[in-house]
């Protein structure tokens, strides 16, 4: 059979995510950001809310998220996305407002904005991609860099005594009354991606119900920053990141699990 006989619309079982643009991703091959983008856009598409969705992009690797996500987006200053999203949501309470942030953005420079937006229970979604490193600037130590983990600013490994322990910001904000839903997921396998998508869907559904803040952490790899091959980085992530940042729902329906 000729290949052209097979490539027909009725035979199609999978297609590019509709709400992703045709712009080539700026992420390194093997990085989890692309999947996290796809899942977020799939949820918005499947819920039929694209006309009412406003995204806020961070500073970091995903600063150009607006080049890839085919929705209205505002790019925020480093760490300030939750403040930007707060105002958009307050001024447009009927809209679906979300931020997409990395660990440096959300858990270091933007800690105050993150905690206070969460504490006020802003009716927004925060998608937090945690790869334990500053990818964009070339692999510096992040608040979530693991103990002993090497980076360009912890070349001998993160030392707890002088650099502090990796920050479990997700557990921290889960304790705030304004936060309704917290889940930590991964996207490196199909199984994990399906679970992550379910969590993202739940988060966006919560906006419709005006339940307060929903927070989805995605523990991801940074093969370039970690200086590993993609597969190797995923194995390393499972063996080292997951024990410190365990996957699963942390808070559901406003109750800690």
């Amino acid at each position, binding site marked *: 059979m000729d290949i052209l006989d097979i490539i027909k619309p009725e035979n199609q079982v999978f297609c590019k995510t509709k709400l992703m643009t045709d712009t080539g991703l700026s992420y390194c091959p093997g990085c989890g950001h692309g999947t996290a983008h796809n899942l977020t856009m799939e949820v918005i598409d499947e819920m039929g809310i694209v006309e009412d969705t406003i995204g806020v*992009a961070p500073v970091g690797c995903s600063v150009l998220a607006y080049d890839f996500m*085919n*929705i209205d*987006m505002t*790019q925020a200053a480093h760490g300030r996305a939750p403040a930007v999203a*707060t*105002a958009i949501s307050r*001024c447009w309470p009927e809209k679906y407002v979300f931020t997409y942030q990395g660990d440096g953005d959300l858990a270091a420079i933007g800690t105050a904005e993150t905690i*206070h937006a969460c504490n006020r229970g802003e009716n927004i979604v925060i998608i937090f991609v945690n790869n334990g490193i500053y990818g964009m600037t070339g692999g510096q130590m992040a608040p979530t860099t693991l103990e002993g983990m090497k980076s360009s600013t912890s070349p001998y490994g993160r030392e707890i005594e002088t650099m502090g322990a990796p920050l479990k910001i997700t557990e921290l904000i889960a304790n705030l009354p304004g936060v309704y839903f917290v889940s930590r997921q991964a996207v490196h396998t199909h199984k994990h991606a399906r679970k992550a998508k379910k969590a993202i869907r739940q988060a966006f559904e919560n906006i419709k119900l005006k339940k307060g803040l929903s927070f989805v952490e995605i523990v991801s790899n940074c093969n370039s920053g970690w200086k590993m091959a993609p597969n190797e980085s995923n194995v390393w992530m499972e063996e080292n990141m997951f024990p410190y940042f365990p996957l699963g729902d942390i808070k559901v329906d406003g109750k800690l699990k």
Partner: protein
Amino acid sequence: MAELKLMKGNEALAEATIRCGADAYFGYPITPQTEVIEYLMMEQPEKRTGMVVLQAESELAAINMVYGAASTGKRVMTSSSSPGISLKLEGISYLAGAELPAVIVNVVRGGPGLGTIQPSQADYFQSVKGGGHGDYKLYVLAPASVQEMADFVEDAFDIAFKYRAPVLILSDGLIGQMMEKVYLKDQKERMTTEELIEKYGSWATTGKKGRERNIITSLDLQSEKMEARVHRLMKKYEQMEKEDLRYEKILCDDADYLIVAYGSSARISQKAVELAREKGIKVGLLRPITLFPYPKQPLFELADQVKGILSVELNMGQMVEDVRLSVEFKVPVEHFGRTGGIIHTPEEILEALEQKIIK
């Protein structure tokens, strides 16, 4: 029908913000501007007009909330005082870069550092020479009365939306705190969602409905694009200079000497002009109402008429540099100012004029 009230400058500004149909205010307490957010919280504009008011966790958060609301085409304001404005400069630079309309109010206090809570004009450089990073300018309005604290709010929003650019109202602790009678305009309707989308839908991130997506960003990684963006900003500033310069001339027609002063310094200098004229010295006052654009041409022309110019400021000599640049050294230009929160008296100003200019 305008309503006559006795109010503090900060309160008049807050009330005028509600009445001009603003959509949102985000702020953080700092003396001497705290009455703005206190007044708004007390008035509950959410009930009056649907205007959103929120106390942010910091000035940084507040200015970024302004950025968020502005990116969706809303009429949004924040206010602070000097140390707080320093924190907001990051966001102000982003607002300028992303070409967003917003109104920022600085009720200036003495600095540097934590300084003092008393009035000052020491933030002139910060306001008109950039302040934040990058090639940008702010349209700067300098009120000299409680009435202007009220009137300039709507003017500021009009300019912000005309140019899609942040506008600064540069007040000070004196104008913010003093009480005067003020005529307040009638309540204007806030823009409906439909009106907003019709007017600003071409750029605002209101949700991708019936059009291509809108993106608000100040980032251009390609140098050619970034240069084009900066050129676009500069064109706006040139247009502001042509179309929206504001200043006031008081008793300049026959003046032999000139005082240049803005804001509260202009109020006090006006009395100094009167005292001088009682002594037979013909002094005029030029009051810049916009500090950018600056009244360069009017000053350049007056320099052919007067024998000398005194720049009176509540600082150690900042605007005086712009006066000198404007008159291109045609006549002597000197500075007189008090600082640290001390306010000059009309007598001190006259004495400085006599000693530094008339001699």
